[in-house]
């Protein structure tokens, strides 16, 4: 804010500005951000984690400048006082330079948030890093997306558009490690948390352990068609080393396609992906994820005034299931197909200042559920209050959402935006 206070007079004065002003104070930087308090508790007790699920104060600063003729600059970072981990953290969300080297090309270099694909909180061809821990403890949905340190080059033509994202050093998910969220530890055969924080072997050699993601897309009569390719690693641990002491990120290639457009009174989307787990293509290695086909179909429609409903059906189909089953301990193998249905309901009230939403994941094959109710009220243009919950339940302790049952939590937050 102080930077803005100093900079804006410089813009107003423009060319007649005082010659004593330094160069920096002449570059107009827009300063925005928010200050937030967020607190949450587990509803039940979890012997592996603290009762406090979230307890933090956060300042986000968002600085941007379009002053230079040839480039836009952006910095967005959070300072975070975290009472759960008892740490002060600094998280740079974005720090990039954007430029247009030619009419047909855009280039973004640096730390950035990246998203593509058609799923709503379900991802097939979006293999950019996710922060599942933030998602489950009740941070703003913004934090589900973790930043990538990457170069994004985009090429545009009448024929089709092409995005190429190169990440020189593998950026994994901020996965569930046991630090904040208890999980099913298959080696121990029980739930675990801070007593058994997952140790990982992360590929981290620059320009060698890299990732490349491409998207070729085109709009045809308002239908958005895209094909995707990815070469890199499973983003969350997808296996274990031979001694079963550390989790690993095996090689992964993904090939997929998506389609989105108007269907009837709403929006329909289809997405498909082939997950080629190239370290275990024949499925014999029980320590490495099997290859999969993933498929998603979704539909969104306004079903009342300021009331929207969205449903999605998603399936993960294991390709070498028999070999997988033979290599897994008896009784611990999953089904060949994991089915998942999601339902989002969003209602806006009080001149759209009150937003009530419920997002539900339900897996009929895993017999588990994850619900995300949230109520957000804008007290004024700057101040918002919020309350919500992350509710997990399931029939099995080892299933995708069932394992998080003890992490069921409620939270509340206050945010001042400027």
């Amino acid at each position, binding site marked *: 804010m102080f930077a803005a206070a100093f900079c804006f007079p410089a813009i107003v004065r423009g060319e007649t500005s005082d010659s004593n002003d330094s160069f920096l104070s002449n570059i107009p930087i827009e300063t925005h951000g928010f200050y937030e308090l967020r607190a949450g508790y587990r509803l039940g007790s979890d012997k592996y984690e603290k009762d406090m699920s979230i307890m933090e104060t956060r300042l986000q600063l968002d600085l941007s400048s379009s002053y230079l003729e040839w480039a836009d600059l952006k910095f967005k970072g959070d300072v975070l006082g975290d009472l759960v981990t008892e740490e002060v953290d600094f998280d740079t969300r974005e720090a990039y330079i*954007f430029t247009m080297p030619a009419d047909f090309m855009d280039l973004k270099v640096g730390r950035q948030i990246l998203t593509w694909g058609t799923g709503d909180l379900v991802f097939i061809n979006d293999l950019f890093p996710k922060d599942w821990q933030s998602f489950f403890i009740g941070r703003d949905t913004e934090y589900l997306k973790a930043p990538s340190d990457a170069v994004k080059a985009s090429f545009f033509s009448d024929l089709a558009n092409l995005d190429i994202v190169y990440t020189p050093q593998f950026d994994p998910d901020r996965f569930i490690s046991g630090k904040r969220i208890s999980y099913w530890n298959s080696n121990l055969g029980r739930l675990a948390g801070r007593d058994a924080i997952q140790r990982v072997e992360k590929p981290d050699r620059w320009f060698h352990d890299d990732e490349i993601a491409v998207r070729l*897309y085109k709009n045809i009569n308002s239908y958005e068609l895209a094909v995707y390719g990815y070469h890199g690693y499973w983003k969350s641990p997808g296996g274990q080393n031979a001694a079963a002491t550390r989790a690993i990120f095996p090689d992964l290639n993904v090939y997929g396609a998506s389609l989105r*457009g108007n269907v009837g009174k709403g929006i329909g989307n289809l997405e498909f992906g082939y997950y080629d787990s190239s370290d275990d293509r024949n499925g014999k290695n029980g320590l490495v994820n099997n290859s999969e086909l993933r498929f998603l179909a979704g539909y969104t*429609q*306004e079903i009342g*005034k300021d009331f929207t409903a969205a449903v999605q059906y998603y399936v993960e189909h294991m390709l070498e299931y028999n070999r997988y089953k033979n290599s897994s301990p008896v009784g611990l193998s999953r089904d060949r197909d994991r089915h998942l249905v999601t339902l989002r309901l969003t209602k806006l009230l009080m001149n759209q200042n009150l937003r009530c939403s419920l997002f539900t994941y339900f897996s009929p094959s895993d017999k588990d559920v994850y619900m995300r109710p949230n109520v957000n009220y804008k007290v*004024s243009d700057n101040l918002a209050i919020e309350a919500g919950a992350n509710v997990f339940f399931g029939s099995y302790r080892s299933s995708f959402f069932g394992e998080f049952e003890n992490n069921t939590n409620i939270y509340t937050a206050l945010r001042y935006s400027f």
Partner: protein
Amino acid sequence: MRVIYGIAFILVVLLQVFAAESEIPDVQTIVDKANVTAYYQGNDGKAKVNMVITNKQGQTREREFIILRKDVKDGGDQKYYVYFLKPADVRKMVFMVHKHTEMKTDDDRWLYLPSLDLVKRIAASDKRTSFVGSDFLYEDVSGRSLEEDTHELIETTEELFVVKNVPKQSDAVEFSYYNVSISRKNFIPMKMEYYDKSDKLYRTIESVKIEDIQGYPTVVKSVVSDLKTGSKTEMEFSDVKYDINLEDIFTERYLRRPPREAIR
């Protein structure tokens, strides 16, 4: 002789002028002209819009955005790009519409959320919902297709044409009809009055300030009042520019990266 011919010629011309002045165009011509004047000035345009929403208790909320528009066809399809500046929590969000005026073709709408780098497609079935929480509806901002109503000229004053508009599909909208008072001078819609199913006036939109910009008469301030809730919204336009030769910035490329026209 020449003088007489001259006088006769002048008389004929004058008579024609007066005849034209008092001649009343048919209602279709009036609504077509008013529609083009209100929504299709120039081939494209840009404006900064400031909205102040005041509720019955006098509490206010503010919205500010840059709006870019390009016409595909005068009186027909258009593209809109809305770049939000205020309030702070929606800053840099982009709302984009490909408006289709043909009946039965829904508009295409997108929303870009910069903090997630997410391009969202929005279901657009109901155009009569509030635009950004104000008393303006989506349809007020981008225009209601003339095809959707029948039009009848019910009054002609010295300054105004008053056109009554009755929806062809009455169950699709909340009003039973609305009257538009159109300036005879420049075809600007000066006032719109909406009547509910019990024939009671419940909503008005007034053009309170008009300026000539690059030769185009332009509403630079309008006010919508909701007589039922006691809420009103003032919308002011500044930095209005027409015929700025916008390229096709109404694509995903510019959702993710706002064009210079929006941010400068």
